[in-house]
């Protein structure tokens, strides 16, 4: 059983560019959450998708947007990249029960470097 997969593994962009990161959830999971982890910090919640809609959002600007597809996979888009967007971007998948998600399983992350 494949776990959560993310692509690409690493990415280098320049300021002002746009980036798209991809995530495939663990088999049987219907909910995808995205987190940003700066170096030496804990992950910070960006947003969560369920049934192709954004259900919860953290304290991130509108430059961060996402999408969930009918097969539950998800994309994270970041526009107008800033140096401060350099981080490890983590995708986590889970099963939603009511308004509570079960255990969240994290992917290996995408390391984004903005120059």
């Amino acid at each position, binding site marked *: 059983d494949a776990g959560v997969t993310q692509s690409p593994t690493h990415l280098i962009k320049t300021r002002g560019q746009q980036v798209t990161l991809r995530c495939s959830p663990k088999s049987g999971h219907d*909910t995808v959450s995205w987190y940003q982890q700066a170096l030496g910090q804990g992950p910070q*919640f960006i947003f969560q998708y369920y049934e192709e809609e954004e259900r*919860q959002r953290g304290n991130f600007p509108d430059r961060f947007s996402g999408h969930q597809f009918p097969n539950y996979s998800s994309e994270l888009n970041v526009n107008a990249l800033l140096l401060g967007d350099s981080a490890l971007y983590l995708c*986590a998948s889970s099963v939603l029960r009511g*308004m509570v998600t*079960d*255990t969240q399983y*994290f992917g*290996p*992350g995408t390391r984004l470097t903005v120059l």
Partner: protein
Amino acid sequence: QQQVKQSPQSLIVQKGGISIINCAYENTAFDYFPWYQQFPGKGPALLIAIRPDVSEKKEGRFTISFNKSAKQFSLHIMDSQPGDSATYFCAASFPGSWGKLQFGAGTQVVVTP
């Protein structure tokens, strides 16, 4: 405002010793407290989790102690092994938050042979 505060920032323990990591939280609505282990270049992996209806949970060498009145919880790693060297994160979420996890800043644990 960081709602989950974790200490210490780093920890060095000898093989066979006990590693203790502490977390304190502000929001009394939190009802789910997981601990994650992260190795370099990897995503966090769930280690053990607890809900406020119990004061302690043990899984193998890992134990969570929970003090609801003090709004604190801790992770104890018994008989620490070099393979336990990793960064550990506490986290918390509350009902209706769609599982949004709020993480502590992490503790880097080094187990020396």
